[in-house]
């Protein structure tokens, strides 16, 4: 390194005072150097201290945390030794922060223009009169269409991707030398994420900025970073160039992390990383990763490994870096359970349409034409017993809405639901018969929300057991313990509360609760998206197991194409509440495919520095489906003309139940580039 690093963190220890009064460290002697024009990725599971590290680079610690030792040097001086006025000048000026959820970071009652103006007034050297031009210039730089109109909008009038772009523009207002990014694309759609990352790369290159990029997603790191630092339990376990670290990491934890990521090209299930990191304040005499490490020896239990720099430039905290290549990074090869051919029907949806808007008293007398198009429309699907149907699409595509309708929480405006035995499924859950209720169970996205924090696990599992089977007392407890075994948790979890469980354990309890009813149909709403990748892999493995054992039908909703690919027999692609493509998983992920499916597949990020996503179209900006024509017409890269605007495209049948809804003939859709 010729230049001195812009951000230079040395031996940083940060901790909080526990209830016992002892200091519990969350960061243990972290070193981090970032030069101008360099971008460093920081990865790790939740709780590894990566966000704390990024905020500490600004000289900021969250409430309750304090610096124990070490220094954070920015541009030659220690951030923790600077005066508040100096810090105020640097933060948001030379040193920008882009938070995870910009929707919450923007003030909801202020127009975008005023918020940008505030940032410019505090940190911009230009005279006040030039600020409005500068604001438009900044929004153009972050590639927002029609910047003048955006300035007049409120944050809630923008999509998630647009809000994130505004946050980037605000950070750029101070002409920063360095940007700290805390999971800036987590929670965004795949296409939006790919666009934002592209933008950040180019901005960093054009302005020679230093970037610290915090993420749990190695695919994101692969896309934007030069170097990567892997944190585990508040300690750097591996540091090195992105290519080397992602291709052949020298630390068993990094290998485990890579193996737990599902990939498009690999049909086998990802490999789960068992165990969980030590809590702050736990004993750290040996290697912190030893309890979860396949290579651990007695040596690892007693001695704390130092950082060793290997040939490829990787600095690893492991005694046996040369042996790590023994750990397999490909999928587990666990056989995917498949449903039997020609199994009986479990559920069918016929022409289902769902509306959120309810016509008011006045609207009932207005012509029907003036009503907005339905949120979800014309869904005809059938599910056979034991099959897993994956529903994919961007946010707002109506995937969760369809699940709610099947669960009876949101009655459809049109269409019918029929069970496998030919009986109609009553639209409203309150009017369903007990046996109908039992047959359909749902697992929600976030277990923190779907488990009652005031109930013990025994009580949570007891609810369906009491309701459907009338179990009581010892019998109930025995059955609850049995259920916990099926999700690989022991009976000793029965008296715990959700707050005492990790994210993965909570989701297992939620899954056990669904299976308590011995359901025929299990609705899974993004059930792995709130979990760490290593935990996600374990949950996927569990679902695969349950699927084989119980012959249940799954409807698996996710925005993550690789996760859906890993688990589904059939896949349906949704765009703005309309089906685009449906068929066996292999066929949907192969050719021919709907232009939208192709856009999604091309935007997927893989933890591979050689993999470059192709951006075929702009990310989603319109919020409601068009009244006529093809729903995808505004973003379609291969739109053929007037026909797409006016006529709803027909279903075209390919082989084996694979159908695509598009005006373009199938043979043209099979080409890699159908233009």
């Amino acid at each position, binding site marked *: 390194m010729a230049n001195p690093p812009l951000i230079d963190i040395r031996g940083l220890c940060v901790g909080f005072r526990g209830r016992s009064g002892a200091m519990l460290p969350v960061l243990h002697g972290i070193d981090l150097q970032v030069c101008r024009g360099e971008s460093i990725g920081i990865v790790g599971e939740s709780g590894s201290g990566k966000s704390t590290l990024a905020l500490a680079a600004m000289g900021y610690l969250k409430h309750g945390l304090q610096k124990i030792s070490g220094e954070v040097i920015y541009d030659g001086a220690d951030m923790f030794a600077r005066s508040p006025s100096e810090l105020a000048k640097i933060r948001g000026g030379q040193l920008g922060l882009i938070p995870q959820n910009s929707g919450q970071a923007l003030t909801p009652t202020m127009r975008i223009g005023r918020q940008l103006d505030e940032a410019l007034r505090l940190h911009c050297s230009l005279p006040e009169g030039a600020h409005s031009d500068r604001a438009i210039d900044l929004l153009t730089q972050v590639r927002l269409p029609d910047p003048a109109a955006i300035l007049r909008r409120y944050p809630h009038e923008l999509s998630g991707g647009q809000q994130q772009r505004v946050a980037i523009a605000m950070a750029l207002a101070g002409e920063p030398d360095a940007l700290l990014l805390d999971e800036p694309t987590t929670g965004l759609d795949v296409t939006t994420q790919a666009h934002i990352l592209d933008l950040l790369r180019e901005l960093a290159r054009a302005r020679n900025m230093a970037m610290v990029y915090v993420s749990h997603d190695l695919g994101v790191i692969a896309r934007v970073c030069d170097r990567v630092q892997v944190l585990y339990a508040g300690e750097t376990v591996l540091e090195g160039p992105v290519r080397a670290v992602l291709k052949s990491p020298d630390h068993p934890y990094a290998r485990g992390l890579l193996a737990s990521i599902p990939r498009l090209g690999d049909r086998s299930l990802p490999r789960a990383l068992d165990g969980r990191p030590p809590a702050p304040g736990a004993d750290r005499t040996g290697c912190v990763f030893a309890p979860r490490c396949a290579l651990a020896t007695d040596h690892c239990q007693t001695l704390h490994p130092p950082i060793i720099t290997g040939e490829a430039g990787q600095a690893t905290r492991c005694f046996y870096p040369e042996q790590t290549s023994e750990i397999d990074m490909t999928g587990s090869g666990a056989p995917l359970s498949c449903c039997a051919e020609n199994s009986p029907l479990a559920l069918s949806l016929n022409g289902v349409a769902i509306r959120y808007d309810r016509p008011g008293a006045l609207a009932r007398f207005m012509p029907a034409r003036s009503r907005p198009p339905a949120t979800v429309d014309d869904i005809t699907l059938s599910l056979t017993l034991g099959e897993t149907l994956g529903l994919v699409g961007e946010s707002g595509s109506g995937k969760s809405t369809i699940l709610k309708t099947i669960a009876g929480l949101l009655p459809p405006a049109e269409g019918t639901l029929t069970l496998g035995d030919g009986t109609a499924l009553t639209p409203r859950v*309150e009017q*369903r018969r007990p046996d109908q*209720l039992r047959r359909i169970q749902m697992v929600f996205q*976030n277990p923190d929300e779907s488990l009652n924090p*005031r*109930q013990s696990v025994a009580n949570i599992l*007891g*609810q369906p057991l009491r309701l459907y089977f009338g179990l009581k007392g010892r019998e109930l407890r025995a059955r609850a313990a049995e259920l916990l075994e099926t999700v690989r948790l022991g009976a000793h979890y029965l008296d715990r509360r959700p707050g005492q469980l990790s994210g993965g354990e909570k989701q297992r309890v939620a899954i056990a*609760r669904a299976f308590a009813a011995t359901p025929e149909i299990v609705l899974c709403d993004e059930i792995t998206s709130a979990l760490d990748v290593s935990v996600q892999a374990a949950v996927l493995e569990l679902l695969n197991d349950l699927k084989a054992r119980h012959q249940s039908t799954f409807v698996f909703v996710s925005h993550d194409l690789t996760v859906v690919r890993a688990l589904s027999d059939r896949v349906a692609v949704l765009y703005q509440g309309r089906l685009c493509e449906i068929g066996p998983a292999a066929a949907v992920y192969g050719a021919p495919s709907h232009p939208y499916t192709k856009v999604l597949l091309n935007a997927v990020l893989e933890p591979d520095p050689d993999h470059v996503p192709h951006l075929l179209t702009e990310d989603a900006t319109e919020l409601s489906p068009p009244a006529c024509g093809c729903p995808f017409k505004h973003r379609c890269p291969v739109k053929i003309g007037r026909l797409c605007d006016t006529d709803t495209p027909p279903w075209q049948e390919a082989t084996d139940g694979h159908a695509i809804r598009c005006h373009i003939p199938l043979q043209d859709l099979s080409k890699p580039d159908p233009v």
Partner: protein
Amino acid sequence: MSAATTTPRRSRALNTLRDMAARPSGAIGLTLVTLHLVMALMSPWIAPFDYKEMNSALILGGPSAEHLLGTDHLGRDVFTRVLLGGREAFLVTGIATPIAMLWGGMLGVLLGLRGGWIDEAMMRLVDAFLALPGILPLLVLITVFGSGNEVLTPTLAFFFGIPVIRVARAAAHEVVARDFISAARARGHSPLSIVRHEILPNVTDTLLVEGAMRWSWMLLGFSALSFLGFGVAPPMADWGLMISDARVYMSLAPWGVLGPMIALSSLIIGINLSADALAKTLGLDQGRKAVV
């Protein structure tokens, strides 16, 4: 099953008390409330005089070794009457507060779960009641039905339960929006079962703190009624009544007013401090969330 759930609950109540006592506000508040409770329970045995024994030789007498707070306009011992003066208030509000919390809380939670037009209509009704100055409807009812404890208790329980509806409904609303309620609905539980198993455990903390605050308001309300002559009938000792009687002679014998005033305000302060400590212990004050 029930044995397994009650054991941690009992220890949880004890733990909460211990955590409250560890805070300065909780320590002071709990001490004051406990003192008053002991005083109310034990006063017939520890009081130096009979509360209605008049001494015509010593009217409006000053504090002395015999009469710690002097005597009132009928020559009765003020200290004795202060010791006994909280008993009626404790009895009436001690019964009325739980009743107010129970009916207000249940109705509020049900409305929060049900939503829709019935919820809207009920809340406007609650607004209408809250718009009236609190003492007015109380006075109307007491003039109609008389002012015995058997009238005062249900009346106070009714009027002080109305604001509880609003608090309980707001707390329930927060819970109803969460996925575990959707999960329970999707399983097909009845609304009552959802209230009992899913919502109530999550709103009891808020209701407990609210109950403590309501109690102190109700004590003040009860004393105000006595002060106006609608509460406890003479010659029974009651703080509100004592203040009312003694205020005429305030310049001659200030202790006659000061004694019951200090007793009443120390109890109210004690309850408020305890409620504050309870809210902090249960983590209900959003201002400062503890790390981990």
